[in-house]
Structures are given as structure tokens and as C-alpha cells.
């Protein structure tokens, strides 16, 4: 089904107690599309991203990836909560990269990349290692395979984190502010790797403040504020000619 969208969000809402963080978000991400989610902090963009791989449970609406409902099974017009095992199976195919890298500090870069394919997919160690080394080479860190995260720079750690997510061969990659915790001079190396991924046709949703990246790499840009999608469209157009006053106000501060 190459024509069906990869991600479909249909009126997705999320509340923490009485605090409604997402208000009826509807959007689609096509296969091979790179979508950038931008907006002020607290606008709900990270929460939305976390809903996509069920790290947060949506309160209302439907969210599906590759035609499969996330977190629930539907039968006889009723929704059944998934068992943790089924949710874990869905997450395998969705890679996620975090703002604070979250590498496993007690494992070397190579072990970080090898962990999930061995434990989750049950693949043999030799094949996984060859693949992991190839992935580290792809993010430019072949030399650092045996380093512990504490001995890598932030940019290097984030590139290992990307390799770790890629090792599960995901069909969708989620990036939660991947460069926000980095020193300015290290941002470029991470964005380069992400750009390479986009070129290879990976479907990506990127929460970011890097407007340059959004303009050059993204196929679509979604501006969120206060838990709603305020404006979306082709990045160059939205950035050059924002229609909504909230978008204008935000862009005037960050550009």
C-alpha cells in the first residue's frame, strides 16, 4: 500500500489531568516525507511526537502508523487497550531520537547500537555487529565504536543515538528536538546526518527550532501553538509568508 500515508492523526487530543495539551490535532505524513513541527515551548509538539510511539497515551481521537492503530485494537466498533507486548512490537518499527540523547551510559557506542536488535529482534550477534559498525560508519563514528558515551561529545552522542534507532530498521523516525541540547558548533554534524537520512527516503517527523533545516530539508512544516495546528504547508512558503499572526510573531523571534 505505497499510497496510504505513513502517519494519520485524526482529531488527536491529549490531557494531563485538566490540562489539555493537544486539542484535536489532525494531520497526515506521507511515505518518505520529512515533516518539521515547530512552535513555542509548551505548544504540545513534543507531546504529539511521543503519542505517535505510545510513550504517551492519547485521550481522544485516532492515531495510526502504517495503517495500524497505535496503542489500541479495534474490533466490533470497540477499542481494546493493547498489552505491553503488542505496544512494544509497534514501537520496534518507530525509531525515536531524544533531546538529551539518552544513550545507555554503561555500554559503549557499539553496544548501544547492538542492544535492541539482539534483545528485541533476537538476531545473531555477528550479523548485528557488522550492521552496527556499518551504521556507526554511516553517521561518521566508525572510529568511536568502543567509546563510552561519557567520552563522546554531545554531537557524537546524538549521532550514536540516531544509529541506535536506525539499527531497528524503522519505517518512521521521530526526532524530539535533536539539536536543542547541543553546543552551537555541534548542531551541524547532527543535521547533516538527518539530511542524509531524508535523502535516503526515510519518513521523518522532526520537532525542531532549526528553521534552516526546516527550509532546506523538510517537505512540510507544521506550526503548533497552544495545542492546535495553527498553520501548515510547504516550508519555504510558510517561513517566507506566514498567514497567521501567531506564526508571524513566532517566526519574527526565531528567524
Amino acid at each position: 500500500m505505497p499510497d496510504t500515508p505513513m502517519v494519520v492523526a485524526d482529531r488527536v487530543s491529549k490531557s494531563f489531568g485538566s490540562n489539555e495539551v493537544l486539542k484535536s490535532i489532525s494531520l497526515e505524513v506521507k511515505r518518505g516525507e520529512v515533516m518539521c513541527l515547530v512552535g513555542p515551548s509548551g505548544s504540545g509538539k513534543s507531546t504529539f511526537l511521543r503519542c505517535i510511539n505510545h510513550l504517551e497515551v492519547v485521550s481522544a481521537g485516532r492515531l495510526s502508523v502504517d495503517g495500524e492503530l497505535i496503542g489500541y485494537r479495534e474490533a466490533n466498533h470497540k477499542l481494546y487497550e493493547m498489552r505491553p507486548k503488542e505496544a512494544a512490537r509497534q514501537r520496534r518499527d518507530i525509531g525515536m531520537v531524544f533531546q538529551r540523547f539518552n544513550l545507555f551510559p554503561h555500554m559503549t557506542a557499539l553496544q548501544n547500537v547492538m542492544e535492541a536488535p539482539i534483545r528485541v529482534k533476537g538476531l545473531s550477534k555477528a550479523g548485528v555487529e557488522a550492521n552496527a559498525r556499518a551504521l556507526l560508519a554511516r553517521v561518521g563514528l566508525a572510529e568511536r565504536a568502543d567509546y563510552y558515551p561519557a567520552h563522546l561529545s554531545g554531537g557524537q552522542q546524538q549521532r550514536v543515538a540516531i544509529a541506535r534507532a536506525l539499527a531497528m530498521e524503522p519505517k518512521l523516525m521521530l526526532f524530539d528536538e535533536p539539536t536543542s541540547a547541543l553546543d552551537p558548533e555541534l548542531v551541524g554534524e547532527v543535521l547533516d546526518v538527518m539530511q542524509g537520512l531524508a535523502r535516503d527516503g526515510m519518513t521523518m517527523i522532526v520537532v525542531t527550532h532549526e528553521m534552516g533545516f526546516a527550509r532546506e530539508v523538510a517537505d512540510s512544516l507544521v506550526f503548533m501553538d497552544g495545542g492546535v495546528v495553527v498553520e501548515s504547508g510547504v516550508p519555504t512558503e510558510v517561513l517566507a509568508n506566514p498567514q497567521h499572526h501567531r506564526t508571524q510573531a513566532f517566526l519574527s523571534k526565531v528567524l
Partner: protein
Amino acid sequence: MTDTAAPGGKTEPGIKAIRLRHPWRNTFAVVLLLIVALFVADAAMRPAYDWPAVGKYLFDQRISQAAFVTLQLTVYSMIIAIILGVTLAIMRLSPNPVVNSIAWVYLWVFRGTPVYVQLVFWGLIGTIYQSIDIGLPFTDPWVSFPTRVALSAFILAIIGLALNEAAYMAEIVRAGLLSVDSGQEEAATALGMSWFQTMVRVIVPQSMRVIIPPAGNEVISMLKTTSLVTAIPFTLELYTRSRDIAAVTFETVPMLIVASIWYLFFTSILMVGQYFLEKRFARGIGDRRPDKKADDATASITGVTRVVGSGQPTVVLPPTDPHKGDR
């Protein structure tokens, strides 16, 4: 740091200063040494210590056997306590309220009563429950045997010590698990790892660094708590055994010294073991080398560093290769 060194390795000459003197330190040390020397000389002469008797009983077979029993009690009860403690800690963190409450009640009972009282209870178990029956309630049991035969004083001592200790280990383990950054669990979950895999592969190994120092404390504490199993009564461990010998020979003080030497010997070994365990679990995290950001951009200029303001003359470190900064 601008005036430190050129990349070529040429440094300024080190500061040649007269070191700050600490006359009181030396005086205090000398006084202390004198007092210790006086005490030792006095103790060596004092008849109550009876050193020949200490020497005679230190390697007495009854004592060394009792020391071995003490060690067995410590090791067995600690193994059970750790397994049970980890289980209880995970139960306490479980989202399942039933499991959580069971662990809470367990901790409440076993931490809330003195271990001595618990041991007396275990000693009386054979009186309270005279036989152990296996079968359906209100029918004739399939198997039945007297409690006193099934559970020796040695086994009761281990059970008593282990169940009490498990409550404390549970809290230590729980603190360790909570000390791991929540991002770690999230990252593992996002990779599709199950809760159990996340615990075993990611959370527990990292929590060990926090768990081991207090757990080592507990082992040492357990070694000494074994002297309480006389409450069961179990009499073959080190302290009770040396008291029994003293009761016959009237050499109370020398026997106490003998027991103390053995306890000290074991705790010393345990401390060495703890040191190596701590080193093992500090992998990747433990070594605090702040500017070991082995980054391409900065690597070439970290050649020579100077320690400033530490009260010492200039310390020039040899140029290290940051690419081999790993162990």
C-alpha cells in the same frame, strides 16, 4: 587558561614557592602517636587481656569452625535477602496496586520489629506450628512432618536473618532504581524493549553504582548481626561459641578479643570485595574526567593543562592522546 601553553608543548617555568607549613598537624600527630604507644604498651602488660590465651584460642578448632559457621550464615542469608530484596523493590515500583501493597506490608512488618524479636519468633515456630502439612485445607494432609525435624536451628537462623534483611535491601535497591534517569527507561521502551528487558539490561546495571556502597554496608552489618542468632537458639556461630568457651575457662576478655579479630578479618575481606565491585559497575560513568570531551575540534589543543589555585606548584600533565582517552 589563555596564558597556559602553546600547542607545541612549550610551557612557562613552574612556580618556585616555599610551601605553606602546617606545624600543628605535626604536633598533633606526635601527641596522638604517644598516646597510642602508651595504650599499647599498657595493654601488652595488663593481665586481664591475657595475650597468651588469645594466641592459644585464635586458631582453636572450635573457634575457626564457629567463624566458618558465621561466614556461612552471612553469605546464605545475604544471598536470599538480595534476591528477595530486589523482588520487593520491583514490587514496590510496580503499577499493580495488589503487588505494591504486598511489598509495603512486608516492609512494614519486618522493618517495624527488632530483628532479635523476629529471631525469637523463628525459634518458637516449632512450638507454634508443630507440623508442616501439605494438602487441601480441612482434609487429611497428603504429607505431614514435624516442624522441628524439617527446620533445623541453622536453617531458622538463615530464614530469620534473611527475611529481616530483605526489607532493608528492598529500600536500598528501590533507591538505586529510582536514581536512574527516566530518559533511560524511555529510550529502551522506544526501542521496543519489554519492561523486563529494560529493567535487567538498562536500569539495574546503572542502579548498581548507587546500590553497592550501602549494600556492602549491609553485608558487613549482617556479619555482626549473626551474633544475635543465639536468640533462636543457635549456638555454633562465632560469638556464642567464644562466650561458651569463656564460661568454662573464665577467660572472658581474651575470648572477646579472639572473636573481634575474626570479625575484623572477615569485614576487611568484604571491604576489599566491595572496592572491586564498585570499580566494575562504574564503567562509563564512574571516572570523573571533566574535560574529556574527546571531540575532534578540541582534541588537538588539549595537550598541557595547568592546575590553578590548588595551593600546589604548577602541575604539568604529559600530553595525552584524547583518541585513546578510553581505558
